[in-house]
């Protein structure tokens, strides 16, 4: 995409330096313009030397509120102790796209935000040179001070800010960035900027917002997805203690919009929530109340025996290659729907007043929420103010904004500010689930154990030849391009269950099925699972990726994957695994997602049917620079343990078109006694830095399942891992 860059500078409130930076697509091309990526960052300097940096993206625990300002502070050249960080408002005209998803904050901001900092430094040097009437080339700046070398004079950024703000901004393309060897902030561990507030219990999260005069709201939705409230005993509910109002919300059937239900408003959340025990609603359960997990599984098996209807990738002649193979391996894999279950249930505070609405939302993706609110309430974007509030976990759930439009609508209807808070059961039963999936694999090996043919018939969800949200198989899924005869094809089932991205979407499931089946092939070939994978990856090569259903995809570098695989084998003592005691085993897997290359080894011990995960080793290549090492390690450890939690016990069951599970008794999250040590190694490579919230998750699930096979000879082909299968 052709872009032009702007840098605007002007005096900000309080005489500080305001540095607006954005990219926009060339306006000549309307189609390109509509896809414009607009970025912005603020720098405010106060005379006392404090530097305020506005962090543009939502914080969901990925550490972005700390990490993005590090990029600016480094090139601006200020001391981290002098930096204060503010969370931006949701304002796409000023800040561009503000979202937390896809692990793309690092690749999108690595270069532009450093240029913002470097441009600011250049302007401060220019201001000092003007003040002293000397050449800028005789000046330099560091730690918030500009020095004039010949005269040994110096001035602080704070003292220079007002003059700097009046200077023309340099062209961002030409500003000089530091040599990475001179980095003082990037590459050093910085604690989460809000952590001191977290550990002392300060109000930080959406659930903590208080607006004067607000009421607390609960919202009972139809347990069947897409159902509608026809009537309810509203008068009886309104008479309950602490209840101020109750009404039916006549919503639609678009899941991330306003759906139908009953709102109850109380003077405390407890009063409103308790009133639900007395609430009786007559529902129209809609057209998908017949759907069930068992029905999906039965239908998937039927479809697997028919030709697939959707071609994903086809190369060579798989049938002929299978016939010619010395060994044919066949296996069916499946995984369930699972919920996001962020520990802070969905919530939002909204105040509708005089045709405008102010919203305090823990959201990963505020602007699409604004559009939905505008459309549903008949407002314009300008009528809607959205404060992005720290999220108590996101994992993809808060990319959707259903809770936001609900709060806005309820506030409008009630004529008062409301804090809408879902119960845990609401949250678990009205999610956008990681979709279930069914894979029917067949592969052929030649006499030397080399893969000759590979087929996946993927039975997924969707309609009209399109996969449902996050139920996708792309043509570049490994081992596509690494096996000469290969078929990827799909059959689609209609689905009334809302689906959506869960941390490492698609990959969190595809990693399990592909890397587990490849492990089966290594066993059939009689080869070491690491060596078998290295052979499959072949020589070091860059494979350009064709566009997938979601648009262009970056190239895949087999050499980078070989390197992390070799590193994790070395660090885990893979070669010595034969000396492990009986009942113990190691499993390996690799996966490429979100531009990150990860290989992982799990070691388990199974005794008397009890599974103990002894340790996980992770090797990752996310490019030339680990920007905040403490944050990166924390993300990788969390991602690995997140995947283990999913594999050990998580399943959402659909019966009668609704979710069965409701709380952590039947949807277990990983607990501390189940959490193994996770040893993390980064391989620094000569590539631009990329994000790390997601790519460490997918390989851990197959590594774990492959370790169980190594320990017990029992192959896990369905998630969650059934403890009975280990006995």
């Amino acid at each position, binding site marked *: 995409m052709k872009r032009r860059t702007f840098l605007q500078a002007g005096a900000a409130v309080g005489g500080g330096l305001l540095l607006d930076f954005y990219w926009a697509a060339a306006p000549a091309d309307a189609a390109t313009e509509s896809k414009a990526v607009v970025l912005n960052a603020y720098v405010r300097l106060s005379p006392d030397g404090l530097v305020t940096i506005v962090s543009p993206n939502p914080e969901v625990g990925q550490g972005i509120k700390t990490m993005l300002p590090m990029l600016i502070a480094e090139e601006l050249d200020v001391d981290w*102790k002098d930096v204060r960080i503010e969370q931006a408002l949701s304002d796409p005209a000023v800040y561009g796209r503000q979202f937390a998803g896809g692990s793309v904050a690092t690749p999108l901001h690595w270069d532009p935000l450093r240029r913002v900092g470097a441009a600011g430094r250049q302007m401060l040097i220019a201001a000092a040179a003007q003040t002293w009437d000397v050449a800028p080339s005789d000046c330099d700046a560091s730690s918030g001070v500009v020095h004039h070398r010949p005269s040994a004079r110096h001035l602080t950024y704070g003292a220079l800010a007002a003059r700097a703000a009046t200077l023309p901004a340099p062209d961002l393309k030409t500003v000089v960035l530091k040599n990475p060897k001179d980095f003082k902030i990037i590459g050093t561990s910085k604690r989460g900027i809000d952590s001191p507030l977290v550990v002392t219990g*300060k109000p930080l999260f959406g659930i903590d917002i208080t607006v004067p005069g607000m009421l607390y709201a609960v919202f009972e939705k139809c347990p069947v997805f897409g159902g509608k409230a026809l009537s309810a005993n509203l008068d009886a509910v309104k008479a309950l203690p602490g209840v101020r109002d109750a009404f039916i919300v006549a919503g639609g059937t678009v899941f991330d919009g306003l759906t139908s239900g009953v709102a109850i408003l109380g003077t405390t959340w407890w009063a409103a929530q308790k009133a639900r025990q007395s609430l009786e609603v007559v529902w129209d359960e809609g057209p998908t109340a017949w759907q069930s997990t068992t029905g999906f599984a039965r239908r998937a098996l039927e479809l697997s025996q028919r030709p697939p209807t959707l071609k994903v990738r086809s190369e060579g002649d798989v049938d002929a290659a299978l016939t010619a193979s010395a060994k044919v391996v066949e296996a069916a894999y499946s995984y369930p729907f699972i919920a996001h279950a962020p520990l802070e249930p969905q919530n939002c505070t909204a105040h509708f007043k005089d045709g405008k609405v102010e919203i305090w939302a823990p959201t990963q993706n505020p602007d699409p929420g604004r559009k939905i609110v505008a459309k549903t309430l008949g407002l314009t974007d300008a009528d809607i103010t959205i404060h992005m509030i720290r999220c108590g976990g996101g994992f993809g759930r808060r990319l959707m904004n259903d809770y936001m439009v609900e709060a806005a609508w309820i506030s409008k209807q009630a004529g008062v500010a409301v804090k809408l808070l879902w119960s845990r059961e609401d949250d678990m039963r009205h999610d956008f689930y990681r979709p279930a999936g069914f894979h029917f694999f067949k592969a052929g090996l030649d006499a030397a154990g080399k893969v000759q043919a590979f087929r996946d018939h993927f039975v997924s969800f969707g309609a009209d030849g399109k996969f449902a949200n996050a139920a996708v198989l792309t043509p570049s899924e490994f081992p596509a391009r690494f096996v000469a005869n290969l078929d990827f094809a799909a059959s689609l089932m209609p689905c009334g269950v809302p689906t959506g991205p869960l941390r490492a979407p698609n990959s969190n499931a595809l990693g399990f099925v592909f890397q587990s089946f490849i492990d089966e092939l290594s066993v059939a070939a009689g080869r070491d699972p690491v060596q078998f994978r290295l052979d499959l990856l072949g020589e070091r090569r860059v494979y350009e990726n064709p566009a997938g259903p979601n648009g262009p995809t970056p190239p895949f570098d087999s050499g980078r994957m070989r390197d992390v695989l070799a590193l994790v084998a070395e660090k885990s003592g893979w070669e010595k695994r034969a000396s492990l005691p009986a009942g113990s085993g190691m499993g390996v897997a690799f996966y490429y997602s979100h531009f990150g290359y990860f290989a992982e080894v799990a070691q388990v011990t199974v005794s008397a049917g009890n599974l103990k995960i002894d340790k996980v080793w992770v090797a990752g290549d996310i490019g030339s620079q680990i920007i905040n090492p403490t944050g990166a390690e924390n993300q990788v450890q969390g991602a690995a343990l997140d995947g283990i939690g999913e594999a050990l016990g998580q399943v959402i069951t659909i019966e009668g078109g609704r979710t069965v599970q409701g709380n952590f008794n039947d949807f277990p999250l990983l607990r501390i006694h189940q959490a193994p040590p996770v040893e993390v190694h980064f391989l620094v490579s000569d590539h631009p830095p990329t994000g790390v919230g997601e790519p460490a998750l997918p390989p851990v699930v197959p590594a774990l399942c492959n370790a169980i096979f190594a320990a017990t000879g029992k192959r896990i082909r369905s998630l969650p891992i059934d403890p009975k299968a280990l006995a």
Partner: protein
Amino acid sequence: MHYRIEVNGRQHEIEAEPDMPLLWVLRDLLDLKGTKYGCGVSLCGACTVHLNGAATRSCITPLSSVGSASVTTIEGIGATVVGRKVQDAWLDVDVVQCGYCQAGQIMSAAALLAKTAHPADADIDRAMAGNLCRCATYVRIRKAIKQAAGVGADKAGVAP
């Protein structure tokens, strides 16, 4: 009903129903927002407070059962020596990701260390198994507890 409860060393007069959970009394009546709601049924530990020093799930503790017990929340735990050490270790080890569960984690850890000054891994497992961390910061939670207790040689902290 009228109640008088002691929270973080201060007396509070409260008008509320007897079955109102302490969690919502703290959050919505006393404006102490540090204690968190996660499940409502004592499964996640985000609502953990101390009653007379014992880790207690406030989401299933009716106001009527609090009586004269001394309630300590995350807002008050830093006033104790152990609580302060735990908070400092949490920052030094850089435990926090989203942070939503951490008030409950810290309250459980402080209750553990007040009773068991030098916990073994099994003690940590027992005391902390009721506290879910959806971000799965468990490796660092364990490390921070050991650091606060001064057990284990692992002292590598994180620069601020």
